[in-house]
């Protein structure tokens, strides 16, 4: 970030060194730390702000349906004549909010920022295996953001078929306005996004396998790296399937094929499609869609593991069990997609199979939750903002995860499928949890990224109000869902049956507005700290992992001299026989010191 990084010349490790210009340093950078920051700003901050703004507009519409609202008029323009939101744009907001948050913020933003920043630094590598691919990956992501944003401005509106874009709704411009040019741009944007994600994931996998420093065996990897590594593998396995689904959908839309369409009569005419099935699309979509949940969640859990151990001044409890449960979750995540389709018309026997595999995921999840709790037990908890967000994550992960037991049960899913119960469930377990992971990661590694500290008191303010709002929004939402209120309804004013949920809708919206507003505190803290934050020491949190052995000022190659060697696992906190309550990984074992068998 500062001028020192530019002028460093002590490049005695033989790393190739070019003269840096503004363009190569800040724009077309191949340095993993700069790319991480680019992902952070584009993916998390910019796309996050857009996504959250959309969710607030959705909430205001639900609380005060069909009422004029100056914000609608301002942001939606012709889509909110007289300030009253149009039903079409409501669905578009729901769709784009989902797409942005799931893919752009919590996949690209989260993995892009922290995998890029931490993989080389924590395994002791000079950079990613391919800095060039890494740069291409970011710029493809940037391009996909541009396409997505451009799609907001097309004549008939952006994609509005839900983030799951089930055909035929997404395939036929006759079915809704958003399925015209808006959907084309959505598909193009996602195709580019997937290419970016694949390049990134391949890079992460190769880097973790090949570039670990001396002594960094797989069983000494910090859990962050395990999580990023496994996430990348799931991504490589499942994202191509979504790409194929998107390509087939493009074929159906533009070239008259019938992969997903059959027997359609719409707007007074029979279409030529014959023999395809929307259920096939659902299978392809959820073959990515479910692993995607873990692509979002696992990095957050990895970040949490690291932060909870560091701030508890204790080893993470059950390292081996934690790794095993990450692997188990990853494996199971690829064979549970059918629980999104219990009532799609597929054979009920398949429903039984998917119920079985789905509920199995609760086991490794429970192991993780209990291990986090046990890590806190008899610790010496340092309540830094990152720690608060990590504890918050465990809390929402439990609350949100438990209702998965209901939704994963095919018999119970019949009645709560696609109601607000589902919305509450997945927002808590993957939305809020993963966002907490992002915040925890930013607070924790901000000194590593920008060489400065974030203000902790603002961090506390941010956490507590966010935490209360998150429960205030999503806890009552379960009950609205149990009343049978379907999701994606522009308003329920045509159903007197649901009139007794209207007060709850207002309460939820008020919490959402508070929660949304308090993110400004974070934004202020983030931006101000980049420029005026207190200068960070080398290892502010007294952490064991290698990234804190590198100089505060960023430099190509990460370490000025030799790469540190690793002699122990990452979790020797408060180890008896050591004076300090932490022992960095590069400190050799003293004579007679026993290394834990992990």
């Amino acid at each position, binding site marked *: 970030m500062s001028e020192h990084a530019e002028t460093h010349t002590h490049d005695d490790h033989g790393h190739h060194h070019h003269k840096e210009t503004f363009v190569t340093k800040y724009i077309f950078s191949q340095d993993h730390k700069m790319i991480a920051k680019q992902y952070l700003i584009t993916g998390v901050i910019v796309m996050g702000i857009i996504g959250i703004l959309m969710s607030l507009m959705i909430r205001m519409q639900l609380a005060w349906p069909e009422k004029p609202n100056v914000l609608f008029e301002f942001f939606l323009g012709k889509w909110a004549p007289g300030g009253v939101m149009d039903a079409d744009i409501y669905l578009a907001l729901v769709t784009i909010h989902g797409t942005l948050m799931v893919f752009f913020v919590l996949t690209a933003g989260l993995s892009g920022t922290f995998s890029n920043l931490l993989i080389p630094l924590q395994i002791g590598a000079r950079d990613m295996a391919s800095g060039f691919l890494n740069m291409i990956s970011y710029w493809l992501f940037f391009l996909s953001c541009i396409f997505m944003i451009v799609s907001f401005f097309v004549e008939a509106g952006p994609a509005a078929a839900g983030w799951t874009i089930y055909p035929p709704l997404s395939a036929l411009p006759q079915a809704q306005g958003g399925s015209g040019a808006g959907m084309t741009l959505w598909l193009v944007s996602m195709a580019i996004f997937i290419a970016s994600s694949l390049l990134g994931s391949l890079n992460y996998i190769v880097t973790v396998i090949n570039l670990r420093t001396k002594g960094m065996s797989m069983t000494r990897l910090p859990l962050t790296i395990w999580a990023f590594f496994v996430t990348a593998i799931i991504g490589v396995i499942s994202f191509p399937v979504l790409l194929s689904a998107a390509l087939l959908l493009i074929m159906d839309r533009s070239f008259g094929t019938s992969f997903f369409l059959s027997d359609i009569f719409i707007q007074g005419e029979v279409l030529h499609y014959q023999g395809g099935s929307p259920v096939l699309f659902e299978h392809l979509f959820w073959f990515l869609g479910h692993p995607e949940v873990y692509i979002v969640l696992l990095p957050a859990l990895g970040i949490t593991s690291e932060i909870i151990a560091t701030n508890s001044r204790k080893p993470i409890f059950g390292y081996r069990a934690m790794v095993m449960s990450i692997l188990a979750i990853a494996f199971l995540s690829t064979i549970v997609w059918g629980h999104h389709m219990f009532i799609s018309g597929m054979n009920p026997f398949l429903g039984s199979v998917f119920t079985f595999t789905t509920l199995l995921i609760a086991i490794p999840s429970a192991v993780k939750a209990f291990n986090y709790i046990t890590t806190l037990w008899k610790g010496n908890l340092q309540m830094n903002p990152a720690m608060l967000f990590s504890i918050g994550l465990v809390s929402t992960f439990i609350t949100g995860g*438990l209702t998965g037991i209901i939704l994963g049960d095919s018999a119970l899913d*019949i009645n709560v499928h696609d109601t607000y119960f589902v919305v509450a469930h997945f927002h808590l377990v993957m939305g809020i949890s993963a966002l907490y992971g992002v915040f925890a990661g930013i607070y924790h590694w901000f000194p590593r990224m920008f060489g400065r500290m974030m203000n902790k008191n603002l961090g506390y303010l941010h956490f507590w109000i966010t935490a209360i709002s998150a429960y205030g929004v999503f806890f009552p939402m379960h009950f609205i869902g149990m009343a049978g209120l379907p999701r994606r309804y522009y308003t329920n004013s045509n159903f007197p049956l649901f009139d007794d949920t209207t007060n709850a809708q207002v309460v939820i919206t008020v919490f959402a507005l508070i929660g949304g507003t308090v993110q400004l505190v974070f934004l202020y803290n983030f931006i101000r700290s980049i420029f005026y934050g207190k200068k960070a020491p080398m290892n502010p949190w007294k952490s064991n992992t290698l990234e804190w052995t590198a100089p505060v000022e960023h430099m190509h190659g990460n370490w000025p001299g030799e790469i540190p060697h690793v002699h122990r696992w990452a979790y020797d906190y408060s180890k008896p026989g050591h004076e300090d309550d932490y022992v960095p990984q590069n400190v050799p074992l003293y004579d007679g010191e026993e290394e834990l068998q992990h």
Partner: protein
Amino acid sequence: MTAFLTTIIVLFIAVAIWQMVKIFDLAQLGASNDQVATDKDNKLNGYLMIGFLIFIYAITIACFIYLGDQPLVSNSASEHGLEIDSLMIISMVVIFIVQIFTQFLLHYFAFKYRGEKGRKALFYADNNTLEAIWTFIPVIVLAGLIIYGLFTWSSVMNIDESEDPIIIELYAQQFNWKARYAGEDNTLGMANVRLIDIDRANILGLDESDPNAQDDVITTELHLPVNRPVLFKMRSQDVLHSAYMPHFRAQMNCVPGMITQFGFTPTITTAEMRLNPDIVEKVANINAIRADKKEEIEARGQELLYEFDYLLLCNKICGKSHYNMQMKIVVETEEEFNAWMSEQKNFENSLIN
């Protein structure tokens, strides 16, 4: 002009928040502040953790008091709904026990072990017995839930043709529902959207030459005789829809190009349900809320007074008016049903020649 003013106001609010945060920020400057948690911070946040735990419990209780009387776990109007409800209640009980217990441990530990200078944490990295305990307890509990769930699922989805169910087609289109009764032969006539002929009022695309189709009856309200098994055949003519009948714990997607099915037996007539004390209370509550919003509701041209009815809702995003795609369901006695049915026109007679 409005847009301009709005921009200014939003801008001012943002600046105001920014400034307030800045004052808060600058007020911290005096203290020695390296932005790492001190004992004071640990203590404060430790206590807040307990406060937060209480908040979680409070919001749980508040939700149960104010929103807990929702119908989806009680007053099922179908036979299989009772099985689903008891599974739901058992799952809920398990969930709430685990939720209350784990949230307590998490927040209590966060409070109890808040950091103090000079204290050293316990170096405790592993314990296979503990890991085994919290692997096997979930295994056992989940095994129970899975087995119970699978039995319920197969009993719900199993359609027993020998019980002679009345066969009804649910036909979905943007943005309304139609029901097609199979008529006296209880066999639905062949149909395909390619045969739709709006001019002749053949709106569901029935095969006019199929003898089974002649006595089919197409309606815009769904009437069901009580205590008689119904087998629904779902069809959609344009996009995905989902036939959601929450009171009967029934839902199935309607997929263009294929026929899906779901069967159940309604057990409580609409008239009986209206007398159910829970429903009476709910309706009174809703009407009180509606009375407060009288003008708004009348401006929309809706009836002010709400009376309970079973509903079929669309529960799969299907386009602009997805939020208003519904059909009234009337469950009635066999005699009432037959009387209603005799008033309906069959397909043969409804065609315009």
